[in-house]
């Protein structure tokens, strides 16, 4: 059963130096507060996995928490580049960053294989692209029934997956809705999981299009209102588009980023 705990305790217990960590949320429900708590607890040497390493991973990478990034699209959506990510790849700042690069279809299928308890997934992908020449986790496999050559990608099984959802009940059952991305797969693929939620309620009122993660499939739940900001939680908040543009000015230079870290992450003693 999921333990309902604080964000600080959950990160302290579940995320260790050197772990493979997936923070998911496809533009919606991105667990930003949890990402900042990982920085605050000064985790290092992480392998970060995420389809769209946007601001949340720009922050973790710039803070030097990551050794490796497994991803399929690394930009600031609707704005442009991730400058901390670029600085790490191009200049190894603040630490070298190894990358393992896929397409969205490949990453989504890697999570599906992980959630399914299978060693790999099959898809019709990557054909003709230069990705397989640089990413050794893209191989080909021949269909035993038709002879078609298909792409094979290994399962992702993170040590810990972290997502943000709208609600949980007091027993730790999790409810989310709207764009649900690949979060269910990420949680089910992981050895341990943390879900931050907008609120913990007595009863989960059904919502159209909802996804339920039963308490027994989740390790910990922490109540973190606004924990997705500048991303959003449908029904609770709107996407802060201005912040995404503002991040460009923070992330662009090392000094402005460091100042942001000191003030907004390390300067905040206790996680929300």
């Amino acid at each position, binding site marked *: 059963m999921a333990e309902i705990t604080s964000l600080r305790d959950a990160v302290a217990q579940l995320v260790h130096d050197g772990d493979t960590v997936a923070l998911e949320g496809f533009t919606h429900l991105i667990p930003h507060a949890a990402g900042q708590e990982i920085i605050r607890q000064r985790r290092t040497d992480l392998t970060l996995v995420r389809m769209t390493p946007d601001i949340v991973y720009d922050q973790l990478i710039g803070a030097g928490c990551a050794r490796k990034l497994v991803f399929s699209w690394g930009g600031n959506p609707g704005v442009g580049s991730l400058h901390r990510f670029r600085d790490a790849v191009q200049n190894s700042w603040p630490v070298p960053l190894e990358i393992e690069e896929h397409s969205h279809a490949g990453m989504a299928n890697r999570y599906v294989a992980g959630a399914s308890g299978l060693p790999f997934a099959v*898809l019709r992908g*990557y054909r003709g*692209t230069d990705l397989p020449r640089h990413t050794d986790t893209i191989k080909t496999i021949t269909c035993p029934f038709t002879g078609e050559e298909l792409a094979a990608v290994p399962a992702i099984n993170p040590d810990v997956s972290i997502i943000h959802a709208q609600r949980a009940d007091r027993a730790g059952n999790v409810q989310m809705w709207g764009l649900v991305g690949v979060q269910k797969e990420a949680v089910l693929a992981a050895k341990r999981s943390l879900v931050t939620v907008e609120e913990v309620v007595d009863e989960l009122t059904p919502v159209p299009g909802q996804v339920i993660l039963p308490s027994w499939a989740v390790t910990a739940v922490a109540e973190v209102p606004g924990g997705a900001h500048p991303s*959003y939680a449908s029904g609770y908040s709107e996407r802060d588009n201005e912040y995404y543009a503002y991040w460009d000015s923070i992330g662009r230079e090392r000094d402005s980023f460091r100042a942001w870290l000191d003030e907004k992450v390390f300067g905040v003693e206790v996680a929300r």
Partner: protein
Amino acid sequence: MTTTVERTYTSDEMMSVAAARALTGGQRVFVGIGLPSTAANLARRTHADDLVLIYESGTLGSKPTRLPASIGDGILADTADAVISVPEVFNYWLQPGRIDVGFLGAAQLDKFGNINTTVIGTDYADPKVRLPGAGGAPEIAANCHEVYVVVRQSKRSFVDQVDFITSFGHGRGKGEREELGLPGAGPTLVITDLGVMRPDPDTAELVLTQIHEGVTVDQVKEATGWDLKVAAELTTTPPPTEAELTALRELKAAK
């Protein structure tokens, strides 16, 4: 060319209008954010209100009343026929060939329509510029029935050969897609702020088939990094109509 008539629209507006006109009613379109999304939503507002817009964040049939700020903008989900998971987008809807048009942008495009959104520079491990990467594009370019690319044209972005093939166009020429077993026809249309290019039916090399009003062939050649061939029957894009411009500007102004 005469320059006495002052244009009442920008070249970017001409590009969006030309791209919107390429879409026809009822088509199912996989929409990338940015220029493609602007054009697709303009088409819905003008001549193709039954266009089915699919965004990779997991929406089928989005009908936004303003331009989405990102593919995860809540308005795409709130106005969709169905909201689905990301694995479902790629496995159930894109991969089996249910989508007519993949509508993509590009950082770098070459004369055979190959797209690079990964790195500038030929050393992947030590790139000159690290770009965002593939996203959904490789499989969109492979599996949609055809691909339209909308991109601003410059010598820097229109190159003889891309530094990195993120999304396969026509490789190095006709027949390569078939050899690779790619289901879709690949890029059939490239729309820029200067004109329109289509692959030559025999070689698959992109050829200038249309220029926007007020643009010269020399201008387009000057903005192309290879020796651009020009179709025998070059046409001129009619300028945006009042209705098109009004719809586009309302769309961009809507909050």
